[in-house]
């Protein structure tokens, strides 16, 4: 939208003209106005998200008992976390949950986006229906799947039981519970990657396909050399956002299984929740949360790098 004309016009009122104060580009004094516009938003974000992190770091090195914050205990909470065999189980659960969910939701999202890309009768309806799970809350997702899988009233449990010949209780069996939680998670989250991918697909100019076809490209080569390179970045962004989202998950396992059976679905986030808000060990809970934060930072740095690369073009 910004044209050479706009630049010229912008410079115009900065001259000796009288009247309204021109926009800030005229000098450092003008910085106050935009800063004032921006500061309230930044202040709120700093107070509610950044300052608490400082507090969390301080808590993680201290002895706490409910609201009382005691003395400095060094790395004791971190050591306790690392030595605890349950922590290994939590970490393993988080990785299984994150990568298990990615392995199902990403191919599903990509496949559906490709199917929805070209116009055909019924496309709008399919698209609406397939995006729908994304507006359902984690809490409701958990409840809906608990009922669907319930051996008492659930059709999914009924069908599986008939096929297997014995009673199946997906969420109650330690060996299948995680698969059940992953399935519910995929159900709610695949639309996100699908929408982003679909939006990226729509920006590919038709000429690219025509040119490739004239060069004799087949169906696979069109995908490999035209479609995929054009959606690569968006797909990567969706992957990273979903990775963070999955890794930080608390609600779904909390409501679906409560972390059970025998801790098989207690992911790291749920462990923090239990330590902090059920057992009220704020220091220990903060320490585990900071370990999660470290993982988030690494994944996010990749995200920011991709965004930067994207905006360069």
């Amino acid at each position, binding site marked *: 939208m910004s044209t050479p004309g706009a630049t010229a016009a912008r410079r115009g009122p900065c001259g000796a003209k009288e009247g309204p104060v021109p926009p800030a580009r005229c000098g450092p004094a003008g910085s106050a106005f935009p800063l004032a516009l921006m500061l309230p938003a930044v202040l*709120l974000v700093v107070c509610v998200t950044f300052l608490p992190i400082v507090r969390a770091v301080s808590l993680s090195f201290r002895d706490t008992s409910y*609201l009382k914050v005691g003395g400095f205990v060094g790395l004791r909470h971190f050591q306790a976390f690392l030595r605890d065999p349950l922590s290994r189980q939590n970490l393993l659960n988080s990785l299984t949950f994150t990568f298990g969910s990615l392995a199902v939701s990403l191919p599903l999202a990509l496949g559906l986006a490709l199917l929805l890309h070209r116009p055909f009768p019924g496309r709008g309806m399919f698209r609406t229906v397939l995006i729908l799970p994304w507006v359902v809350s984690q809490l409701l997702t958990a409840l809906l799947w608990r009922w669907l899988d319930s051996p008492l009233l659930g059709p999914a449990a009924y069908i599986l039981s008939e096929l297997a010949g014995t009673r199946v209780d997906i969420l109650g069996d330690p060996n299948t519970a995680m698969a059940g939680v992953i399935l519910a998670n995929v159900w709610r989250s695949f639309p996100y990657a699908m929408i982003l991918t679909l939006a990226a697909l729509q920006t590919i100019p038709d000429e690219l396909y025509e040119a490739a076809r004239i060069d004799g490209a087949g169906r696979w080569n069109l995908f490999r050399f035209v479609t995929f390179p054009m959606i690569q970045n968006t797909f990567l962004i969706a992957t990273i*956002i979903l990775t963070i989202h999955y890794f930080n998950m608390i609600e779904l396992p909390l409501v679906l299984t409560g972390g059970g059976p025998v801790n098989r679905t207690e992911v790291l986030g749920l462990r923090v*929740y239990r330590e902090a808000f059920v057992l009220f060990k704020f220091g220990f809970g903060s320490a585990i949360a900071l370990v999660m934060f470290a993982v988030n930072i690494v994944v*996010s740095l990749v995200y920011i790098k991709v965004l930067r690369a994207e905006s360069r073009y």
Partner: protein
Amino acid sequence: MEQPRGRWRALHAIGRYAALGSASLFALAPIYWAVATSLKPESKILTYPPQWWPDPFTLEHYLNVLMQSPLPRNYLNSILLALGTILLVLCLGAHAGYAAARYNFRGKNPLLFLLLATVMIPGIVTLIPVYLMAVQLGLHDTHLVLILVFSAWQVPTVVWLLRAFFENIPRELDEAALIDGCSRLGAFYRVVLPLAQPGLAAAAILVFVWVWNEFIIALNLTASNKTRPLTVGLFFFVGESSIEWGKMAAAAAAALIPVILAFALLQRRFIQGLTAGATKG
């Protein structure tokens, strides 16, 4: 894409509809089952094999939820929280987004980066200190603290989203307004803001869906039914009435209605907000 011969094309179409049909079934089944369960009389809910279609059909569970449960209060709380958060986020986000779109000033990029950096903070890290602060300031279990915390989490996305919208509105309009004697704020309020309505709508619906669905923050920052939003209310309701399946299903279906309606009516804005929020650099 290509021009396959007739039979291939037919097979292709059948395959496409079969794949999309099964995916849609997957997407709708959990929602359908809750709605179907909510419409069955209690005696038909726990049958084996399950009753696939509600017959006979009843609305008694919905009446029970409305008359004999705490959920209507939670419903009201969710509406208040959503409205409060939308107002605050749009107000903060529009000003900040406008500053970022129109002005170059020292500190702009670090500040924008600071907002972007919130994507790397897991909510639970901040929730422990926020809980402590809320208790110590006497704000625990108030609507205000929820609105502030919700807004803080939504502001960054909305700033990035609105900034992109403002950048698409020609600068000449601001400048014309300034020459006509508007103040800088006046130019923003009277000229730019009305033109950014689609962006504000996209932001509002994103925030609405987020607040309506938020659970874990609200669970830990509330302690009574006066403030608990619908998600938290449902969580306790299900814990307490674990055998009244029909009533629970009706409550869940009722909780779904507003987001599904908002989504159905404003689908384009919603998708626009979602994609812009994630990829606008």
